[in-house]
């Protein structure tokens, strides 16, 4: 009995001594760090992603949130120069950017200036660099007798296999030209569903036939899931030697080179296709869609899209030099400090899932993410505009050494009229004037100011800045909507819009023939309280010229259906450039691309013969003054017809910390991770400094609780000691 309190006092003493020691130990690192302390000094890039990638098979993937990963793993033949603007294609695994070879009907080479009618086919001969190796992968693993270890596996072999890392052995092999051919053939694979197969079948000779052929073959197959595409020739793609192959197109298509820089044209080793096609693999969730295999600077070592994705340096990567030249301002911005050095500069990239923007933003401010976008909620905290209207960081951001990068995106957000609609569509003068009046009335400058925090540039036509064909200043002014005043564009007045309404036969928003008020419908998939302010604003804009706007909000599926069937009247849409060519925007108004007939991307169902002819001419031209002239004509036609309210081109704002280097926005390239550099020492110091635990509020709360309960305890004691009289 005598020892018991002694023991307790000893314990309490020890405990009390431990508290400050524990706190002191913890102060050396951050309690709120989501990463392990060992990682703090490593060359790791930290970022977040908000949506899990749907596909990691390069032939199926067509989404920017997938390209974040695929761009670092797979290497197509070409890439965009990291620093130069306008965007320029340079070789990646190819030895040079291929030149088109024009062929006549007999397959003979024609001169470069051959007439279009003489050209029967266009060929691109591509040579790849020798010595490029794939990342370590079990598909390449061989035993001593050079037989593949994991190409004939049965269900028993898979008993203890749950992920790719459960395979004990891995191997590699050199990249061959045939791997690119194999991937092109995969576009025709009946089970892969490549989104560009339809487009490529239009151009690559024989791809449509291969597609039909494989469809039949695949249905007959019963023994194995593997369809060895090496056994099926593709007429338009020929292997010349181990490092060279040739692609032949049916017609001139200069934009094809841009496609060669996209992940659809990444190499695919047949060994990987066979490996993943084995029975039982699908049941184990081991597939090419989950475990990519490439030659790029990084490889996916952890694919847990519900928590995090981890890319690690590919030990077999050959190394690539950082660009030695760029734009004139790049040197001043320190973007050429690594010129000529071997990339990649980081060992690992950790992408954590953040579904909500608020935690992601707060973790960026704590230093746990190296880069961040700016959502509307945090815009005022991060950015302020000076008296000249230029965006600059707030003092809070500047104190943390955070940097701001802005760039006008190669995107356009517009409001479209369904040209198949009886009221707003068609080629009648009345409808055209009505569309012009609405174009003037809807004040996109105000929209950008209110709803995009000033992050946008009002559009004068379909082409955004940075794309050939875009004209700046007065030259690029849409005079149907704007005037040139005081050396800048100025939206035409509402009185002018009302005059147009009168000319269209809608004085004060009433149809002068029937006397009925004009009611138009905006079809949108957006709904909920978040969109209410936007819709109210739109109603107000239309009401300026007496039009009642009815917002027909529906779910996304029904909205898509309306668009396909052409039953929408006015809609909002957007487009993000696949490649930096005006064709990628003008095709959104090309008649044969109409959504209503062909399920194409011409959502407005706009048709104009002259425009279509000019489009056919423009799409295969080089970027010359002649092409600019054709583009100007096309822009004038669509401005006159006004199938869209041209809307605006968003300006992207991104933030990064001081320890993150070589940050230059490149809207076309997907493989920019290899250029990035981080300073982990500075990052670790800042993280500790910014994240010191704060204890006093906890102690204060405990003290308050104690103070409140003390009288209650006294009350209890009094109650217990009360005597019954």
């Amino acid at each position, binding site marked *: 009995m005598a020892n018991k309190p002694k023991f307790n006092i000893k314990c309490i003493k020890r405990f009390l001594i431990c508290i400050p020691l524990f706190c002191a130990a913890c102060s050396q690192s951050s309690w709120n760090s989501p990463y392990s302390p060992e990682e703090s000094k490593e060359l790791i890039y930290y970022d977040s992603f908000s949506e899990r990638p749907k596909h990691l098979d390069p032939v199926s993937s067509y989404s920017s949130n997938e390209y974040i990963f695929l761009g670092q793993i797979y290497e197509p033949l070409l890439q965009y120069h990291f620093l130069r603007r306008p965007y320029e294609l340079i070789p990646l695994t190819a030895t040079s950017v291929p030149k088109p070879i024009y062929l006549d009907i007999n397959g003979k080479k024609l001169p470069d200036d051959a007439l279009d009618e003489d050209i029967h086919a266009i060929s691109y001969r591509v040579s790849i660099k020798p010595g490029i190796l794939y990342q370590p992968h079990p598909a390449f693993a061989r035993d001593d007798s050079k037989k593949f270890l994991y190409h004939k596996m049965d269900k028993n072999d898979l008993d203890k296999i749950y992920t790719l890392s459960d395979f004990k052995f891995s191997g590699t092999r050199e990249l061959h030209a045939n791997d690119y051919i194999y991937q092109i053939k995969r576009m025709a694979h009946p089970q892969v569903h490549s989104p560009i197969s339809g487009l490529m079948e239009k151009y690559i000779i024989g791809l449509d036939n291969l597609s039909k052929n494989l469809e039949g073959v695949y249905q007959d197959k019963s023994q194995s899931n593997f369809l060895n595409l090496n056994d099926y020739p593709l007429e338009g793609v020929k292997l010349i030697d181990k490092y060279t192959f040739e692609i032949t197109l049916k017609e001139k298509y200069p934009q094809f080179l841009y496609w060669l820089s996209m992940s659809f044209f990444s190499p695919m080793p047949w060994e990987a296709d066979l490996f993943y096609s084995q029975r039982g693999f699908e049941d184990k969730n081991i597939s090419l869609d989950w475990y990519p295999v490439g030659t790029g600077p990084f490889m996916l070592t952890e694919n847990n899209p519900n928590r995090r994705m981890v890319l690690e340096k590919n030990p077999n990567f050959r190394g690539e030099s950082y660009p030695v030249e760029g734009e004139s301002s790049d040197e001043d911005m320190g973007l050429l400090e690594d010129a000529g050095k071997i990339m990649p500069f980081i060992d690992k990239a950790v992408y954590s899932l953040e579904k909500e923007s608020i*935690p992601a933003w707060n973790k960026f401010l704590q230093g*746990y993410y190296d880069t961040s976008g700016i959502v509307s909620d945090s815009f005022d905290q991060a950015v302020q505009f000076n008296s000249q209207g230029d965006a600059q960081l707030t003092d809070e951001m500047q104190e943390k050494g955070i940097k701001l990068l802005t760039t006008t995106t190669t995107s356009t957000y517009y409001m479209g009229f369904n040209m198949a609609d009886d009221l707003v569509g068609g080629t009648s003068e009345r409808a055209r004037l009505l569309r012009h009046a609405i174009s003037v009335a809807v004040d996109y400058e105000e929209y950008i100011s209110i709803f995009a925090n000033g992050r946008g540039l009002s559009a004068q036509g379909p082409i955004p800045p940075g794309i050939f064909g875009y004209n700046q200043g007065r030259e690029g002014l849409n005079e149907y909507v704007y005037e040139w005043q005081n050396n800048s564009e100025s939206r035409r007045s509402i009185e002018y819009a009302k005059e147009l309404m009168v000319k269209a036969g809608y004085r004060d928003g009433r149809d002068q023939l029937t006397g009925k008020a004009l009611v138009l419908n905006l079809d949108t998939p957006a709904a909920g309280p978040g969109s209410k302010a936007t819709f109210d604003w739109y109603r107000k804009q239309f009401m300026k010229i007496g039009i009642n706007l009815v917002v027909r909000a529906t779910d996304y599926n029904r909205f898509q259906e309306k668009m396909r069937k052409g039953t929408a009247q006015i809609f909002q849409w957007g487009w993000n450039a696949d490649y930096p060519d005006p064709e990628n925007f003008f095709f959104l108004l090309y008649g044969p691309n109409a959504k209503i007939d062909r399920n194409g991307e011409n959502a407005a169902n706009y048709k104009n013969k002259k425009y279509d002819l000019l489009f056919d001419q423009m799409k295969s031209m080089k970027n010359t003054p002649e092409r600019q002239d054709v583009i100007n004509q096309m822009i004038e036609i669509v401005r006159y017809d006004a199938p869209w309210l041209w809307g605006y081109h968003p300006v992207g704002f991104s933030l990064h910390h001081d320890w993150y280097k070589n940050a230059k926005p490149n809207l076309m390239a997907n493989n920019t991770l290899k250029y990035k550099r981080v300073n982990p020492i500075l990052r670790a110091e800042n993280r500790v400094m910014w994240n010191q635990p704060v204890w006093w509020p906890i102690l204060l709360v405990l003290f308050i609780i104690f103070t409140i309960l003390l009288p209650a305890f006294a009350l209890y004691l009094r109650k217990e000691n009360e005597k019954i009289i």
Partner: protein
Amino acid sequence: MINYILRRAAYALPILIGVNVITFVLFFVVNTPDDMARMNLGMKSVSEAAIVKWKDERGYNKPILFNQSASGTKKLTETIFFQNSVKLFVFDFGRSDSGRDIGYDISQRMWPSLAITVPSLIVGLLSYISFGLILAFFRGSYVDVSGVILCVIMMSVSGLFYIIGGQYLIGKFLHLVPISGYDTGFNAIKFVILPVLVGLVGGIGASTRWYRTIFLEEMNKDYVRTARAKGLSELRILYRHVLSNGLIPILTGVVVILPSLFIGSLIVESFFAIPGLGSYTIDAINRQDFAIVRSMVFLGSVLYIIGLILTDISYTFVDPRVRLN
């Protein structure tokens, strides 16, 4: 008892069929198989042929509920509903529309959900009962009155406020734990603290009031008066007699939710980036992945029914008067 359990299991069958039908109808009212195909194949450049192929591969090319062109029983069996529902009853969840094994994903993702829900339940239960007892003990005093007012205020605040406020206060301002994220093993502890704390604080208002009511009701009963008359201390009465007699309503509320702990929490998991089954379900709804949605709804229903049966069984343990027959 075995007979009782078997009988309840048999009753569950029509409930599960009904739940399955309702899920099926609700889902396909909003999404057609074509919409699902488009969502999966991507919105850009999706050809009609690709949509047809996608539906063929996943069995969505059949009529939804009734196959007019088939004969006999095939009119019912050769439908999307039948083909997708039957396997569920043997817990074969099949593959998601993106090709993943749903059973495997559930087995992986239930652990993060449990890592949040189990501590939340235990800590919450202990705290709420303690608070309830304290308020009941000090009934009528300033502690009770101010406690009840505080509870009413706390239960009037949105759960989202606690989440965002908790992240701001504990994670961003005090720098004590990570704002969001998850890790495996013991490393998960620092990620679990904040969601558990937020869940605890968010539930204090309603739960404390509920437990207080239970205990006050018990404290007005004759056996408590007798205990007082015998000279027992208030604390002894409270913890020895009131608490044990108040267990039946507490069990009703707790045992029924035990199996559902596997399902996780939809909002908490989303805000704290916890890779559990709650976020799995939300993701599936957003991606229009019917295979996952129907599996999760089915699993949720089964677990809820199990919870109800367990509640009935637990009555027999805490109250000898209850017999399952």
